[in-house]
């Protein structure tokens, strides 16, 4: 009988000429974001003749490196269906601890990992609240954020001291072959991040968890570990962004993370991930981060009053979102979102 059923399925396969959809939506979406970046950079020549240059690309990439690292962690958390609001506070914590504990003295090689471990501990604390105490991620990370900022404030007595360790200065200020070091770093980080998210067992588990927690559990995914790790990684990334900012500006302030909250989420979402978790691609997120930074450089060059520039900034983001709409790709490719419950 087995052989006969085999024959039957072959038969069926040959007869059924209707096609199903391939999974390449996220690749397309990531490519589209990058195309949009390029278009925006080229179009910015209209704003100022010095724009649209290789120099602009390098500046954008340098400035985007912070957001890329940050939104990697945020992206992992979002992938599992959570949200990390503690990033700005942890950036500050990482930066402040780096300058006050390490400064430009010796011991960076073991102290930097130690500071990152402390940041990871903050992420672990959030994760414990979320996974075991069942506090919604939004509230838990908001609470850790308030607590960590408060602690950083108390710790520094309001004035962060010290300067950047040399190794961070090298990372953020060095250059090779005329290209700033952070650009190399960004490329390497993007590749590694993409591999971690899309090609590792851990990454696959995250997708499983974000798609359907119960199913993932039944399928034997170690869900506790997989739920906790994204928050830890996210906090470590934020702590590292704090260090990068320290290297970039050779010092720390208590507000250094403030402007990164919404961009870290926006980069992930513009990159094609769903805020509800379970899908997305780090390549898209990298594109989203670069796109947001590009918008910033273009906006900075427009000679209008701040209010109007703000309106234009919102408008560009909106247009980008509309252009990156899933339906639009589908229509372009003559494919469409097939309803979930197959025919």
């Amino acid at each position, binding site marked *: *009988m087995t052989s006969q059923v085999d024959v039957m399925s072959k038969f069926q396969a040959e007869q059924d000429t*209707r096609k199903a959809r391939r*999974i390449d939506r996220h690749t397309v979406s990531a490519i589209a974001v990058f195309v949009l970046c390029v278009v925006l950079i080229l179009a910015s020549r209209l704003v100022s003749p010095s724009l649209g240059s290789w120099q602009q690309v390098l500046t954008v990439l340098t400035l985007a490196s912070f957001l890329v690292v940050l939104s990697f962690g945020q992206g992992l958390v979002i992938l599992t269906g959570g949200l990390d609001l503690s990033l700005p506070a942890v950036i500050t914590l990482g930066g402040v601890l780096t300058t006050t504990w390490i400064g430009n003295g010796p011991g960076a090689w073991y102290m930097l990992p130690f500071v990152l471990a402390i940041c990871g501990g903050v992420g672990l604390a959030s994760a414990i609240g979320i996974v075991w105490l069942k506090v919604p991620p939004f509230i838990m990370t908001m609470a850790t954020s308030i607590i960590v900022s408060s602690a950083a404030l108390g710790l520094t007595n309001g004035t962060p001291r010290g300067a950047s360790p040399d190794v961070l200065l090298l990372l953020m200020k060095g250059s090779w072959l005329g290209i700033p070091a952070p650009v190399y770093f960004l490329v390497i980080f993007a590749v590694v991040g993409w591999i971690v998210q899309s090609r590792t067992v851990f990454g*696959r*588990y995250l997708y499983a968890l974000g798609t359907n927690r119960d199913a993932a559990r*039944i399928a034997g995914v170690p869900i506790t570990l997989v739920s906790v790790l994204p928050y830890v990684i996210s906090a470590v990334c934020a702590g590292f962004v704090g260090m990068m900012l320290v290297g970039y500006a050779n010092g720390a302030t208590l507000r250094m993370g403030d402007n990164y909250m919404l961009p870290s989420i926006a980069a992930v979402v513009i990159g094609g991930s769903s805020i509800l978790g379970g899908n997305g691609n780090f390549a898209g997120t990298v594109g989203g981060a670069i796109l947001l930074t590009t918008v910033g450089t273009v906006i900075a060059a427009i000679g209008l009053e701040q209010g109007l520039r703000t309106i234009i900034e919102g408008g560009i983001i909106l247009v980008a979102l509309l252009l990156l709409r899933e339906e639009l790709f589908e229509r372009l490719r003559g494919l469409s979102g*097939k309803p979930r419950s197959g*025919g």
Partner: protein
Amino acid sequence: MQEPVSGPAVPVGAGEVALSIEAIRKAYGATVAVEKAAMTLMAGEVHALLGENGAGKSTLVKILSGVVRPDAGGMVLKGRPYAPTSISAARAEGVATAFQELSLLPNLSVAENLLLPRLPKGVAGMTSAAGTWQAGAEILARYGLDHIDPGAALESLPLADRQRVEIVRAFVNARHVLVLDEPTAALADTQWLFDHVRAATAKGMAVLYISHRLSEVRALCSRATVLRNGRSIATVELSAATDGDIFEMMVGRRGHAARRAATSTAATLNAPVVLSVSGMAGDTLKDVSFELRKGEILGIAALEGQGQRELFRTLAGLRQPASGTISVDGVAQALRGPSHALRVGGGIAYLPEERKTEGILSGLSAASNIVLPILPSVSKAGLVSGRNERAASEEHAQRVEMSQRYLSFPIGDLSGGNQQKALLARVMATGAQTLLLFDPTRGVDVGTKQSIYAAISNFAEQGGSVLFYSSELPEIVQLAHRCMVLYGGRIFSEFTGEDIDEQALVAALIGHGGAERRASAGVH
């Protein structure tokens, strides 16, 4: 039972065409779901819609219910053109559907679900809570479901009751045409449904009945339309068609009568015990003890809610028993969770009850779904190797006779049958020596069923042990070496080998065999 069960009286308006559809076509982008589908429903008739998974049945149902609009073709309802633009429009014309994937809201009450989208109004045009409760209670009573509290949150109901609510809602909204898409998937007992379907047809309702259970179809329907690859192949009088004929129309070639798989019963009786449960109790379970041996297929037969769900979930590590011990390969174990269950002894893998909510990971490819539990083994240094993943998923897909071309598609886009095959492939891929299969053929078509049976038999022949529950008795009769009947949370009786007989099982299912009513699962 308030409604009188109608006899074979002549239905009201019999012979009148209720709904006819012609040359319907629907494509999603490049994917053609339905092409040249045609069918005529007579008033007072129960008309079956048959076809393999993926033949286009669900799309046709959606077109009839106003969820999607056809690209071409037309429909005529009671002599007037029918082109609903929404569910509500379809209802307004008297067409209502009970969907396969239940369309109920877990956070609302039963009454609210029944009356959506418009609730009874009270003071100043506001919806009235009392009125809603009252109206819900009346509807439930009318359909013999007064054990369901209309004020209860839907999510607190067992799956079967949720399915009943879904069906009742369709009954309430249907005037001319009632569409029932796999209405018995979660119902072990179909008599209730049949009675009400007959009562409705007696009043002139046309019912389109979609089910993979041919026995049900034969018990209820007079004619059947067969869909294959999106086209309607033929409409036949069921009394004039053999199962073989229908099977041939559905899949395009002749099928075979099911064979008796369990031939090696005697051999398994003395095989070593791999899983032993003693004195397990908790929630609905009371003192459940049994042993599962190497190479054995142990069937569980039960009406719904007799503790089978708790039993399976406890063995999968998803819940803790209040008392009793579980021994795997002779060692007592406290199962901490599914991933732990997979690791103890030879391993225990669980195929869950609800495919949509506990089984598939809809955005991921079928291949990724299959290899999920064994990801580390298809990886090098934590990196998933695409080649290994493909190889492993192909290997296991083959065990369940799943076509390889589906492996790269998101599993959510596949038909229910292929999803189920992939999930079975997943539990087999774990390498676990014991499989817990909870209703492994729920809502799948005949061809897929045969593939699943074969896979289960092969697994046991190679020394694996299987504990499976099925809502269809013939399945148990066909597959199991041994069968236990759960009743009221206890093992009520046990049958071995040739003694597994539908009649005997039916008697045991309802306790003591003294029941006047047949448990109709699969009986015709």
